[in-house]
C-alpha cells in the first residue's frame, strides 16, 4: 500500500475533477433548459387550453329552483306552506365507491333499506350528470353534525338546504288541496324541452288536487347561477346569478274553518262533503273522509306507510270520495220533478194514488218503494209532486220517469251537470253517469229497456253522480236556474281571478219561473214540514233537522237520499235477527241549500253530503248538512236573521204605505 501515495498526481486529479464538474454543469444547464421548454409549452403555448380547463374544473352552472307559490284559504289561512329542511345529497360522479359510501353513511346515521331503495330509484331516473340526488330528506341536527364532522371522508356528499311543501291542515286538505311529491320518470319523460329546463332544479311536482291543477302557476320560473366549486363539490363562491321567478301565491274559496266543521260533522263515518257558494260558484268546503297525511308524500313516503294507505280496503284513504261517483238515490227527485213540470207531464194539481209499488203495463215485476221498505207497509196514498218530494215517494217518480222517457230525462238532467263536469278547475273530478240510450249501447252493447228508466227515476240503476255534482246541481236550484260553475281558485297574488271559461254552461230555463218557487217550497218542506194528523205528510228530514232545532233562524231546502249498495230483500231488512254488515249498508245522501224562501237574502250555501254506508239520508246525512249550514251562515257569515226579518217587515210596511 506504500505505493498508493506515490501514484497520486494531485494536479492531474484536480484537473480531472474540474473537468467532471464542468460536464456536470453542462448537464445541469441542459436539464434546466428542458424544464424551461416544458414550462413554456404549458404556460405559454397551451395557456388558453389549460385556462379553460381550470375554469371548467371550478365553474359550474346550476339551476336555482323557484319558491313554490303558497296556497291560502278564503280567510288568508295557509293551506300549503314552504318549510326549510336540510337534505343529505350525493353527487354520484364524485363518489368513488357508492356502496362503500352508503355503508359508511349507514354506520353514521342508520340508513334504512327503504331509504337505500328509494335512493337507487332516484339515481335510475334520467338525471343530468353531476347533479346532486337526495338520499335523505329532513336531516336531524344530530345527523347533520355527524355528516359535517366526517365531511372529509365523504367526497360528493353534501347537506343542502331546500324548501319543501308543508300542509298545516294535514288530513283535512289531503284531497282538495292535494300534495306535491317527487317528479317521477313518467312525468319527466312527458316534459317538453322547455319544461325539462324549467324543472331542472326542482324535485317536486303537484300530484293531486289544486297542487296539480295549478302546477303551472305555483311552480314559477327556474333561475340560474354560476358557482365556483372546490374538488369536493362544495360551493365556494357565487359568481353570477339569474334569479328565479317564484310561483304565484294563490287563494282558494275554500274556508278552512268550514272544512274543519264538515270533517268533524262526518264524525266516525266515511264519506264526503262538498259545499258551494251558489253566488260565486266558489267551493267553500270539499272533504273526503278518511283523509291521509299529505306531508308523508312530500319527502318520499316509505313503503311501509304507503302500504298501510293502499291496503285499507274499507277506508281507502287515498280515494277521493268527493269527486268520485255513487248512486245519487232520491236526491235526484227535485230535478226530475222540475223536468216533469217543464215538460207538462205533471202540474201542481196532478196526483197519483200510491199503492206502495209501481208496475209497468204488461210486466209482472213490482218496483217497490224503497223509502217505505223499513217502515210499515202500504203506500203514500193520495200524492202530488210536492208530497212526492218531501215524502220521497218512489212510486210517483217511477210513474213520472216512465212517462218522461230516458231521452227527455237525459237532456233535462244534464243541464244540472249530471254526467258532466261543470267544475272550472277540478278537471280530475269524475263525471259519473247520466244514462242514455247511446251510453248503454256504447258501454254495455245492449238496448235501453223501459225498466232502466224506472230505476233511473229514483237515482238508482245506471245513474251515478259525485258529491261535487250533487252540490253543483243543488246550487243551480238555489240560483233558480242560473248556473255558476263551481271553482276553487279565488285570487292570484291577491288579484281576484276570473277564469276564462271556454265553453260556458248555459242557464237552466223553464217555462214558468214559479216552478223554481214550487220546487224550493217542496225541498223546504223536506226539512221543515212537521208531523201532523194526516198519515205521512211530514218532511223526511223534519225529525232530524227542524225538530232537533226548533229555534232554527233560517229555512233550509233539502232532499235526502239513500242509495242501495247491494240488493237486499225486504224480509232480511225487516228481520230483527239478521245484522246487515257495515259495507253492505245503504249510502246516505243529502243535498241542501240555505237560506231558502227568504225574501231578504239569497241562498248562501249549497251542500251535498255523502255518507258511505250511512243507511239513512235524512237522519244521518241531513244533520251533517245542517251543522255545516249553521256554521257557515251563523258563525262564519254571522248573518243576523232576526234583524233581516224585521228589516224585511219594515220594507214591506214601506211598500204597503
Amino acid at each position, binding site marked *: 500500500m506504500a505505493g498508493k501515495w506515490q501514484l497520486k498526481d494531485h494536479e492531474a486529479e484536480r484537473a480531472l475533477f474540474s*473537468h*467532471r464538474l464542468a460536464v456536470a454543469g453542462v448537464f*445541469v444547464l441542459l436539464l*434546466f433548459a428542458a424544464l424551461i421548454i416544458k414550462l413554456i409549452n404549458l404556460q405559454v403555448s397551451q395557456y388558453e387550453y389549460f385556462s379553460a380547463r381550470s375554469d371548467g374544473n*371550478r365553474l359550474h352552472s346550476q339551476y336555482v329552483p323557484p319558491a313554490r307559490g303558497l296556497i291560502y284559504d278564503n280567510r288568508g289561512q295557509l293551506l300549503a306552506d314552504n318549510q326549510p329542511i336540510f337534505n343529505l345529497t350525493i353527487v354520484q360522479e364524485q363518489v368513488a365507491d357508492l356502496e362503500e359510501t352508503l355503508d359508511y353513511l349507514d354506520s353514521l346515521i342508520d340508513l334504512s333499506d327503504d331509504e337505500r331503495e328509494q335512493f337507487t330509484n332516484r339515481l335510475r331516473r334520467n338525471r343530468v350528470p353531476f347533479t346532486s340526488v337526495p338520499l335523505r330528506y329532513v336531516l336531524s341536527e344530530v345527523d347533520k353534525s355527524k355528516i359535517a364532522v366526517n365531511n372529509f371522508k365523504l367526497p360528493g356528499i353534501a347537506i343542502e338546504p331546500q324548501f319543501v311543501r308543508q300542509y298545516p291542515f294535514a288530513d283535512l286538505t289531503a284531497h282538495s288541496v292535494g300534495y306535491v311529491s317527487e317528479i317521477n320518470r313518467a312525468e319527466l319523460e312527458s316534459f317538453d324541452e322547455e319544461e325539462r329546463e324549467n324543472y331542472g332544479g326542482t324535485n317536486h311536482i303537484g300530484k293531486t288536487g289544486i297542487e296539480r291543477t295549478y302546477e303551472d302557476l305555483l311552480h314559477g320560473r327556474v333561475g340560474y347561477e354560476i358557482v365556483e366549486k372546490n374538488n369536493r363539490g362544495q360551493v365556494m363562491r357565487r359568481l353570477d346569478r339569474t334569479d328565479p321567478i317564484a310561483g304565484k301565491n294563490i287563494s282558494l274559496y275554500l274556508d278552512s274553518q268550514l272544512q274543519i266543521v264538515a270533517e268533524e260533522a262526518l264524525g266516525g263515518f266515511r264519506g264526503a262533503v262538498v259545499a258551494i257558494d251558489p253566488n260565486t260558484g266558489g267551493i267553500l268546503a270539499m272533504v273526503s273522509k278518511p283523509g291521509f297525511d299529505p306531508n308523508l308524500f312530500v319527502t318520499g313516503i316509505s313503503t311501509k306507510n304507503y302500504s298501510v294507505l293502499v291496503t285499507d280496503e274499507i277506508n281507502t284513504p287515498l280515494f277521493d270520495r268527493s269527486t268520485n261517483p255513487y248512486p245519487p238515490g232520491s236526491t235526484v227527485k227535485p230535478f226530475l220533478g222540475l223536468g216533469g213540470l217543464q215538460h207538462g207531464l205533471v202540474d201542481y194539481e196532478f196526483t197519483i194514488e200510491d199503492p206502495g209499488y209501481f208496475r209497468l203495463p204488461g210486466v209482472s215485476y213490482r218496483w217497490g218503494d224503497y223509502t217505505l221498505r223499513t217502515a210499515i207497509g202500504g203506500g203514500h196514498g193520495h200524492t202530488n209532486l210536492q208530497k212526492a218530494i218531501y215524502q220521497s215517494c218512489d212510486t210517483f217518480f217511477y210513474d213520472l220517469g216512465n212517462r218522461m222517457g230516458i231521452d227527455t230525462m237525459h237532456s233535462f238532467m244534464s243541464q244540472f251537470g249530471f254526467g258532466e263536469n261543470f267544475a272550472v278547475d277540478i278537471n280530475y273530478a269524475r263525471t259519473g253517469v247520466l244514462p242514455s240510450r247511446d251510453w248503454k249501447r256504447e258501454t254495455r252493447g245492449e238496448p235501453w229497456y223501459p225498466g232502466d228508466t224506472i230505476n233511473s227515476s229514483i237515482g238508482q240503476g245506471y245513474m251515478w253522480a259525485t258529491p261535487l255534482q250533487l252540490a253543483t246541481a243543488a246550487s243551480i236550484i238555489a240560483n233558480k236556474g242560473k248556473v255558476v260553475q263551481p271553482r276553487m281558485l279565488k285570487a292570484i297574488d291577491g288579484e281576484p281571478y276570473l277564469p276564462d271559461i271556454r265553453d260556458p254552461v248555459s242557464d237552466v230555463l223553464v217555462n214558468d219561473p214559479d216552478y223554481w218557487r214550487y220546487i224550493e217550497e217542496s225541498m223546504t218542506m223536506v226539512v221543515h214540514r212537521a208531523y201532523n194528523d194526516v198519515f205521512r205528510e211530514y218532511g223526511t228530514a223534519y225529525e232530524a233537522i227542524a225538530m232537533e232545532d226548533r229555534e232554527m233562524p233560517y229555512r233550509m231546502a233539502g232532499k235526502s237520499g239513500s242509495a242501495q249498495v247491494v240488493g237486499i230483500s225486504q224480509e232480511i231488512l225487516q228481520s230483527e235477527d239478521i245484522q246487515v254488515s257495515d259495507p253492505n249498508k245503504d249510502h246516505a245522501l243529502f243535498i241542501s241549500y240555505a237560506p231558502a224562501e227568504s225574501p231578504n237574502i239569497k241562498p248562501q250555501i249549497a251542500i251535498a253530503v255523502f255518507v258511505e254506508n250511512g243507511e239513512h239520508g235524512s237522519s244521518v246525512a241531513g244533520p251533517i248538512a245542517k251543522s255545516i249550514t249553521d256554521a257557515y251562515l251563523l258563525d262564519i257569515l254571522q248573518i243576523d236573521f232576526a234583524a233581516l226579518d224585521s228589516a224585511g217587515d219594515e220594507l214591506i210596511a214601506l211598500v204597503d204605505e
Partner: protein
Amino acid sequence: MNNQDFIRQSDGLDSQSRYTQSIWRTLHTDPPLLVGISVLCGFGLFVLFSASGGDVSVVRRQGLTMVVGFVVMIIVAQFNVHFFRQWAPTLYAAGVGLLGLVLVIGVEANGAKSWLDLPGLPSFQPSELMKFVVPMLMAWYLASRPLPPRFKHLFWSAVLILVPAALIIIQNDTGTAIMVTMSGIFVVLLAGIRWRIVIAGFIALLLASPAWFIFLAQEHQKNRILTFFNPYRDPTGAGYNIIQSQIAIGSGGIYGKGWGEGAQSHLDFIPESNTDFILAVLAEEFGLLGVLFLISMYLFVLVRGCYIAYVANDMFSRLLAGSIILTFFFYVFVNMAMVSGLLPVIGLPLPLMSRGGTSVVTLFIGFGLLMSIQTHGYSR
C-alpha cells in the same frame, strides 16, 4: 463575490474589508450561499402561505423548522471539514447500524417504517443522515485512492453505496433510497470514473428497466410509469395529480393569477399542494416569471456550490462539495420535472419550498458542510 481572489489581491490594503471578511471567516459562513438560501426560504414561506390557504400556523412551523436548519447549518460549519473526514467511517458504520436498528424497532409513518424513537432523543430518520454520510464516506474512500478509481475501488464503492440503499428500500422508502444512491454515485462520477463504464452502466440500466418493470415494480410504481406516458388513462385516479397540476401550471400563464388567487390550489384541486406539488401553486399564482425566478435562484445556489467545490483545497472537500450540490440539483430537477409532467411522479419534495421537517434539516446540514469547506480551507 470572488472571495479568494479578493483576499489575495487586497491583502493588507483595506483593513475595513479585511475586517468584514474576517467576520464571515470567524463565523464560518459563506455570504453568497447564505443570501441565496435565505431568499429561497423567504420565497418558500411566501408561497406556502398561499398554498396552505393562509394558514399562519403552518407557515410559522415551517419558518421555525428553517430557523432550526440555519442554526444546525452554522453549527456544522464551525467544524473543520477534516473532522468529518476522520469520522466518516465511524459515522457510516453508526448510520448502517441505526438503519439495521430501524428494521427491528422502527416506527412506521406514512407507509414507511423509517423512524427511530430512541429514549432521550427526538425521533428521527436514520435514512436522512445517510444522505450526507454516504457521500462523506465515498469522498473519504475515493480521495485517498488514485483517481480515476480502479475497478476494484469501484466495486467496493458500489458495495458501500448499496448496503445502506438496500436497507432503506427494505424500509419501503424508495425516494430516500434513490437520493442516497445518487449522492454516492455523484461522488464516483466526479472522482473521474471512466466514461465507458458510465455509458456501459447507463445502457445496462436501460436494458434492465423493462425487466424491473415487469418483475420487480410494485403496482403503484407501474401505475406511475403508465400514467406518466398517458395521464388520461385514469384521470380521476392515478392520473389525477399530474392532470390537475398541469392544469394549474398551464392556467398560470406568463404572469400568473396573483398571490392567493390560484383557483386550482385554493379549491383543493391540487393534492399535496403544501409539499411535493407546491411548484404547481407557485406556477399558477406567479406564472412562468415566478418559476424562472425560482430556477434562477436555484441556479445561483448551484453556481456558488460548484464554485466552492472547484476552489476547495483537497480532493475530499471537492468530492463532498460536488456531491452535495449535485444532489441538491437532483432534488430540484426531479421535483420540478415530475410536477410539470417531464418525469413520472416520485415522492420528492422541492428543496426549501415544500413543507417538511427532517428533510429540511438534512438539507441545511449539507449547506453547513459546504460552508465548512469554503471557510476552513484558508485558515491553515
